[in-house]
């Protein structure tokens, strides 16, 4: 707590200093009224972040912002399930944030919502993970700067698997078997979130398919995916799956509280899991959906975008460059001091010692070996349409073919609007 009160104290001091320094005192006082941090310059920027669950993340983002002296950067820390609606609603207004974090999605580019950041990234382009460049590129221009990569895979309790004499599963069938063997009384074998949406993407990849092909046509509607959906339905009704947990799968609580033996989660949760379970855990990728498939890992993450319709596009770009291109120390702090994330910059990934050993190193290996990145053409509307496939054919008992057909209609409508 003392750290927290310190930070407000600091902020007040900075504000006071700023007020003393600023010749135009009125301006600073005005900023103070708005709860904005101090700074000698008159440019005010607002940035949107979704609420990260790890302790200290909000303070960190605000600390970086305060260290910037060319603009007053205000952070809106938005609780996650409201993040999209709030972001999208405000982007329409003159209260829109100047910069925001989100995932690369082409509709933002097509509607002219996000600014071209090619000139920022170009000088260090080679230092970025090439996949992080590709996933942010439309027609040769780069529209966002990746801050962190978040590989997502399964976490398992070593001791529980040993007790039940279960090997680490490599196929979906083995996973189902393992879940059944690991389910005992109050502990369920497996947790993949209450809605199972976290494994949507990996199910497609592990079936040897992908979302869209190179011509931006549907590529997820394959026999392998259909078979995978049927297996998921079987798993869902088997009683071996933890359902109705209070936290979703991005939070490791269900795993650490001992509600399940295996949970799908993200690399960010590693420090929390380590603290709760010591060394009694390991990670493995999403198993092969069908024999012809391949194990896969979803390389999610968050990127910074500049609102092209904002009032301070140039100042916002400068801030993005300063923090997410130049300030490597902050980038490393952000990636490894709270939850674990993989820095998209090769130079940082190499020097990040916390990711060099134990399960973290294993996570990095899975990221490199099995990882798939976002396809920028796969938009939020398509994402939701595919989530509905899971809702309809896994949680309810609709025929997977019919559910996929329904999804095709929506996706084709989107594709037509985006690519003609």
């Amino acid at each position, binding site marked *: 707590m003392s750290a927290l009160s310190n930070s407000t104290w600091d902020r007040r001091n900075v504000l006071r200093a700023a007020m003393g320094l600023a010749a135009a005192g009125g301006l600073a006082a005005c900023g103070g009224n708005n709860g904005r941090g101090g700074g000698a310059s008159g440019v005010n920027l607002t940035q949107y972040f979704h609420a990260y669950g790890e302790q200290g993340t909000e303070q960190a983002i605000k600390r970086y912002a305060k260290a910037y002296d060319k603009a007053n950067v205000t952070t809106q820390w938005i609780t996650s399930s409201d993040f999209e*609606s709030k972001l*999208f609603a405000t982007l329409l207004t003159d209260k829109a944030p100047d910069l925001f974090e989100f995932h690369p999605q082409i*509709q933002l580019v097509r509607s002219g919502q996000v600014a071209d950041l090619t000139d920022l990234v170009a000088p260090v382009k080679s230092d970025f993970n090439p996949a992080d460049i590709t996933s942010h590129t439309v027609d040769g221009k780069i529209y966002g700067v990746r801050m962190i990569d978040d590989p997502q895979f399964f976490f398992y309790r070593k001791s529980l698997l040993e007790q039940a004499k279960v090997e680490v599963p490599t196929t979906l069938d083995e996973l189902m078997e393992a879940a059944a063997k690991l389910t005992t009384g109050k502990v369920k074998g497996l947790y993949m979130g*209450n*809605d199972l949406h976290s494994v949507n993407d990996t199910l497609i990849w592990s079936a040897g398919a992908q979302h869209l092909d190179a011509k931006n046509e549907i590529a997820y509607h394959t026999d392998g995916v259909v078979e995978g959906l049927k297996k998921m339905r079987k798993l*869902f009704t088997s009683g071996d799956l933890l359902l*109705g947990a209070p936290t979703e799968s991005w939070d490791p609580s269900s795993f650490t509280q001992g509600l399940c033996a295996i949970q799908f989660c993200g690399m960010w949760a590693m420090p929390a899991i380590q603290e709760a379970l010591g060394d009694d855990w390991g990670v493995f990728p999403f198993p092969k959906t069908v024999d012809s498939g391949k194990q896969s890992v979803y390389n999610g993450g968050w990127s910074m975008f500049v609102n092209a319709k904002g009032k301070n596009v140039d100042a916002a770009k400068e801030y993005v460059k300063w923090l997410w291109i130049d300030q490597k120390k902050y980038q490393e702090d952000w990636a490894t001091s709270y939850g674990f994330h993989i820095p998209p910059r090769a130079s940082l990934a190499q020097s990040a010692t916390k990711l060099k050993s134990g399960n973290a190193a294993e996570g990095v290996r899975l990221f490199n070996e099995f990882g798939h990145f976002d396809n920028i053409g796969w938009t939020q509307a398509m994402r939701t349409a595919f989530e509905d496939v899971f809702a309809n054919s896994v949680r*309810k008992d609709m025929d997977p073919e019919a559910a996929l057909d329904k999804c095709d209609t929506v996706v084709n409508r*989107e594709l037509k609007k985006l690519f003609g």
Partner: protein
Amino acid sequence: MSVTKTPDLARPAPAKASPARPRRGLRGSATLNFWLFTGPFLIGLAIFIYAPILWSVWLSFFDARFTVTPDKFIGFDNYTYMLTNDDFVGSLGTFTVFAAFIVPTTWAFSLGLALLVNRLRFMRAFFRSVFFLPTACSYVAASLIWKMSIFSGVRFGLMNTVLGWFGIENIAWLADPNPPWYWLVIVSARLWLQSGFYMILFLAALQNIPGELYEAAAIDGAKPGWQTFRHITLPQLRATSTAVVLLLLIAAYQAFDEFFNLLSKTTWGRPPLVELYYKALGESQDYGAGSAGAVILTVLICVVTLFQGRIMGFGRGDESK
């Protein structure tokens, strides 16, 4: 604004108004007075309610994605899209089922509570307060208690704990739609939040029923209990019942908060408002289609309300007064 007049409220009314005040012709200034009284309200209504409504209607004829100031007129495309959209049409079905169930249930439940409390001799105020208290809670708070504590799908949920005493396995109340336990969650939350208020309405009406009616009925040989209830109490509550049904219907149309909070990421159990919210705001940012859906919904609500008014005679009383 007329806000400046508030102090009058506190000032004690003088026994006689000052005779020096010029007497206003009542009929002559009626129109002016009418606007004086209703003006502030109507202006606000125009700006904050009707302007957005019209804006929505206008949007519904445009290809408005990621913008609320579109320029591509597309006629009725949004309407055909919404009317052929399974999810939206399905949600209209959901809403109908939901309304058809929740309205009579809440009606009966709150009437039952009112009858109980009305017959109590001791601790009436206490029990009335107990039933009334949940009215103070928000849907946000209730959804939270229901989701996190009562109907949590894991072992530390209250319902699962209680069932566990009888050796019944944990149930995923909200995550698994088969069987559709989620309706139990939704309905119980709604009953808890709403019934107390309607109980008060019924209680007030019950106490307005003249005791003589019951005495007369007893003399005529009506047995206390069902007979008196059927032939005296219920007819006497007719007006209140009508009002309660109307209020419940409006509340059912507006159902959003608890569905939104309890049933995220489903394709079932979605009332139209939730569907529209996701359409317009959540994923696709399709304000055109969202607005078209809103217009369809509004028209539907108007029809249902007018129909219901015809049947139950609501509003007829006004004109005769």
